[in-house]
């Protein structure tokens, strides 16, 4: 009976296969990072050109601004996914490093008049130094304890920012941070900022891609899989964790710096626990163990929150329901199993008809 169903060919099947073929090079496949050829794929070029063309075919400043935010969230999520998705450790303190970056830029540009291009790099270094100091003791912890400890660090950072009013402006924060400028070119419109943010994000994706493909990426995956097995091969587990944590923090520092120069303001409200949880959500929802997943998650959540805000008091319950549904139907994240899920959906109706016909 099954043979009968397989032999039968319908023109509709051709349509399905065309759709599947198109999807197959559009959407990341489940285990993207395990394929480690040193070359660009059509998919990468497709994403790159989509990023380049998008604001031109949709010339709406509001959307541009939204995508600027999504890009900043994307950088944060990318930094966290190296730590969470690859090395398998959890951190709820990513927002604190974001804050370190933002305040470094704010203080350096407004108080000391440093060009924003230099402040940009200084922010990354500052966040990395913080991460090294914090990570050394904290990363001895594992699992829930590590989550709670990093959470504690985030809260301590917030208190420090609020109380040190002379340096950080206290609860009010710092205003009038100059726009990002480089070689006399100022990024003052949403469109220019869009290209700035997504350009930085592209660079960081390339960096992470190389990292993930190298011995460091393998060491991270090994640490996530079996710490004993990893150290029996001469991998210094503590150093690998610290290194990846620091890289993630440096990414967050860059994101913070960009945020400060794009929004022209830095205040403690932005770096609360909410942001940390949101970033973890982006990584989990977007898909772990995949570099494009967290960015997809960042875009999706940023746009979702923006769209839901028009429903005012219903926005939070709606947000919760949507997240729960997504986690039920996409347990590996929207960026990871999307292809498999869509193939399933597309072929679902075909299979259903056939099942009825064959009468098993």
């Amino acid at each position, binding site marked *: 009976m099954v043979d009968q169903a397989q032999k039968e060919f319908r023109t509709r099947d051709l349509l399905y296969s065309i759709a599947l073929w198109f999807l197959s090079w559009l959407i990341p496949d489940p285990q993207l990072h395990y394929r480690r050829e040193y070359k660009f794929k059509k998919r990468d070029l497709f994403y790159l050109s989509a990023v380049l063309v998008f604001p031109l075919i949709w010339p709406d400043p509001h959307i541009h601004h939204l995508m600027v935010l999504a890009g900043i969230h994307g950088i944060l999520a990318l930094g966290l996914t190296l730590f969470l998705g690859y090395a398998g450790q959890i951190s709820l303190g990513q927002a604190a490093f974001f804050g370190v970056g933002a305040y470094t830029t704010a203080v350096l540009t407004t108080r000391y008049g440093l060009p924003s291009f230099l402040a940009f790099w200084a922010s990354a270094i500052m966040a990395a130094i913080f991460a090294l100091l914090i990570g050394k003791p904290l990363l001895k912890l594992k699992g829930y304890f590590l989550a709670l400890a990093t959470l504690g660090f985030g809260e301590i950072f917030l208190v420090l920012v609020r109380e040190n009013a002379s340096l950080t402006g206290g609860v009010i924060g710092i205003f009038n941070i100059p726009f990002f400028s480089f070689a006399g070119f100022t990024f003052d419109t949403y469109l220019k900022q869009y290209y700035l943010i997504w350009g930085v994000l592209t660079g960081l994706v390339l960096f992470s891609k*190389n990292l993930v493909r190298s011995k460091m990426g393998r060491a991270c995956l090994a640490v996530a*899989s079996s710490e004993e097995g990893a150290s029996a*091969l001469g991998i210094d587990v503590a150093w690998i964790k610290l290194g990846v944590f620091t*890289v993630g923090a440096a990414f967050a520092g860059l994101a913070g710096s960009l945020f400060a120069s794009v929004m022209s303001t830095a205040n403690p409200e932005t770096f609360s626990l909410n942001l940390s949880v949101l970033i973890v959500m982006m990584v989990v929802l977007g898909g772990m163990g995949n570099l494009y997943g967290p960015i997809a998650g960042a875009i999706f959540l940023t746009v979702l929150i923006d769209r839901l805000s028009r429903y005012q008091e219903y926005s939070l319950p709606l947000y919760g329901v949507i997240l729960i549904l997504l986690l039920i139907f996409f347990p590996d994240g929207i960026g990871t199993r999307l292809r498999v899920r869509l193939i399933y959906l597309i072929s679902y109706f075909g299979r259903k008809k056939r099942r009825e016909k064959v009468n098993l």
Partner: protein
Amino acid sequence: MFLRLEEITKQYGGVQALNGISLQVERGTIKGVMGPNGAGKSTLFHLISGMEKPDSGSIWFKKKEITGRPLHEIARLGVGRTFQTLQIFGNMTVVENVMTGMHMRIRGGILSSGLSLPWTREDEKRAMREAKEMLEQFGLFGRWKWFASQLAYGEQRRLEIVRALAAKPDLLLLDEPAAGLTYPEAKQLAENLARLKENGLTLLLIEHHMGLVMEIADEVAVLNKGELIAEGPPEVVKKDPSVIEAYMVRK
């Protein structure tokens, strides 16, 4: 002396796991460690490889004291090991598992890897080529693109040995390499181990599989209840009354 243990003692709570064990392993030989369950064989391996610290006594490897040093430092000195419970990296492909074994021999840190500098790229390519060659030697080449978790149990055991060998160790500790293998697989393993010995590797292996140890080991040490009860060439140890009493007759 290549590897030397002096009066090693280890206690877990009130249980005396190892009691004053002294052992020596010569370079380029295969030494089998046998004993009934709970004799302290695995504990001995944990102490040598640095997963645990001995309560007293000292361990010397290549004229350096390695007592109580962390696992990865000892691994860097040239001690490789496999585990009784497999520690395969199931989230990586087979070839990547082997390349992870070459971690110490690939140049580059986080920044140079991230920026994909020429020398790291060169080393990566070399590592990939070498890993494929090693897989070919051990009959796993047909599976190089598979996920390690998809392999059959016997293949995973073999992969773990290949991965440990990829680090180019001087001393390899094998914790029950033949456990759960079928007869032909075990035979194949014995051949491979004999070939490794010819290449100058020193092996220390724990085994329940009597046949395998008797076949390839140059010397056998028998542990029982944390004490070393017999040591010597396999033929001699086989006839030792205390070994027969402890290991073979009383099950």
